[in-house]
């Protein structure tokens, strides 16, 4: 059974068509990377799957049910990590269990022992067990992003979405974060969709690829299908090879 089925999804913001009749299916446990330049609709797609954005037309079916609002079993990692700066890494990870904790206990931090252990295990998995008590705002960007992943894992999702999780990180941290995402997905057997704009990282970590351009799907395939032609199509306009070969002569910039 497919974990995610997107059916004729269209999303318009006023005149802008962010997604244009997008359909695809993702099988359980697949590690999918969504590629596309800025504005191609990557975020909108993930937000529709997540229920944060309501589609204009079409629907998303997760686990057999159409998505209407956000679901407990779909977790999300954000580009700006969106963790709570004033709390410790541990408390942030623990906040992933809010969906199954009542209001008062969550306020007083009387969480289940199980959830607490799970938060620490998740931190362990992203290599931050020793920093568990550190304030999130004092961590580096890469560490904060890993806390965001830990939080998503504590949510015990079946589906993990990540919207440009490494866009604001330096290459070293980006590698590390992608490794943790891939590792967690395999270990917990998660269906994962990650939007990226770094082609090299995508090629390195991706299993399946969905390429968006102007809200439409222009590529849907596996690692072997992702040729340089495809990438040129996705990131058209800039012809690097030609620019590179020409840059020793006079370069008048348009």
């Amino acid at each position, binding site marked *: 059974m497919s974990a995610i089925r997107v059916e004729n999804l269209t999303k318009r913001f006023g005149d802008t068509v962010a997604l244009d009749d997008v359909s695809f299916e993702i099988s359980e446990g697949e590690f999918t990377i969504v590629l596309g330049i800025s504005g191609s609709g990557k975020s909108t797609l993930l937000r529709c799957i*997540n229920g*944060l954005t309501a589609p204009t037309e079409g629907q998303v079916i997760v686990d057999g049910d159409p998505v209407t609002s*956000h*679901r*407990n079993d*779909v*977790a*999300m990692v*954000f580009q*700006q990590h*969106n*963790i*709570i*700066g*004033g*709390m410790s890494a541990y408390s942030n990870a623990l*906040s*992933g*269990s*809010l*969906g*199954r*904790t009542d*209001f008062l206990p*969550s*306020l007083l931090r009387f969480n289940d022992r199980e959830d607490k252990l799970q938060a620490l295990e998740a931190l362990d998995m992203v290599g931050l067990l020793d920093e568990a*008590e550190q*304030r999130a*705002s*004092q961590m580096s960007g890469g560490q904060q992003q890993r806390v*965001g992943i830990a*939080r998503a894992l504590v*949510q015990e999702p079946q589906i993990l979405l990540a919207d440009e999780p490494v866009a604001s990180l330096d290459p070293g941290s980006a590698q590390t974060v992608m490794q943790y995402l891939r590792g967690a997905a395999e270990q917990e057997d998660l269906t994962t969709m990650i939007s990226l704009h770094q082609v090299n990282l995508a090629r390195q970590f991706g299993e399946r690829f969905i390429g968006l351009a102007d809200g439409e799907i222009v590529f849907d395939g596996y690692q072997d299908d992702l040729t340089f032609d495809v990438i040129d199509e996705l990131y058209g306009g800039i012809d690097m090879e030609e620019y590179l070969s020409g840059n020793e002569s006079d370069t008048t910039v348009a």
Partner: protein
Amino acid sequence: MSTEKSVEQRLEEIRLTRRVRWVLYGILSLAFAGAFYGSLVLINFSVMDLYHQWPTFADRLVRYTPNWEYIIERNLPLESVITLAMGFAGTVLGIPLALLLGILGSGRVTPYPFNFIFRSVMGVSRAIPALVWFLMFIPLAGLSAVTSTIAIAVSTIGNLGRLFTDELEEVEDGQIEAMETTGASKGQTVVFGMLSQVKTSFIAWTLYIFEVNVRQAVTLGLLGGGGIGVVIQVQQDLRAYGNMMAGIVVVLVLIIAVEMVSQRLRSYLRDDEEADGLIQLIVGLPQRMAESVLK
């Protein structure tokens, strides 16, 4: 270069735009100056009058030399502690409702037309001057520092609550969405997604309003509401301006002390990384104690 022409042309365009803008700014400035001038006329402001009266006024300024001995004689520090207590208790009493109304007044918590109910309540609390609140609460607590405190508490609701509401408008959606995706309930989203973002600003604003309230407590004292304000009022009635200024000096010290503490706290809250002597020590303590126990 072939673009030279278009650059020249663009400059002309920009100069024209600028000229039009200068004219527009000129008109706005004139309107502003007109409003200012109109205001001065409306209140019968006359520079000549002030000029004529200046020597008399200046002569009198020597009267305002503080009589330092009076500070000890009249035990002004004690009186100023009462004023401080009024400001502190009034602030603390006002916080819960300020928080509640401030949060409910935000368009993100209560949907649009309804949040204005709460904003209006806060508006009323602000619109009625603390002096009038004082009068209105006499039947409740008599002519006493308690009444001042209640008056301060009531105006705190409006002043602080409004600052809270304003602050909540600047909250970023990201963290709220993040909490929503974890499946958090509405209440949990508000607490973890919104309030945790503004926690430090809320504390900073509360400290600011506390400062304002201490000043307000002095003012209410001037009208019979207790504390050092009463002393200042009496000395003024007696035209003992030296004593009055001694009182004001004590107020000055009090207010500067309050501001310094509150500024310190705020800057500590702002850049929490900065190792800030005492507070760092206290906050860091549990960690170190736990470590030493486990070793």
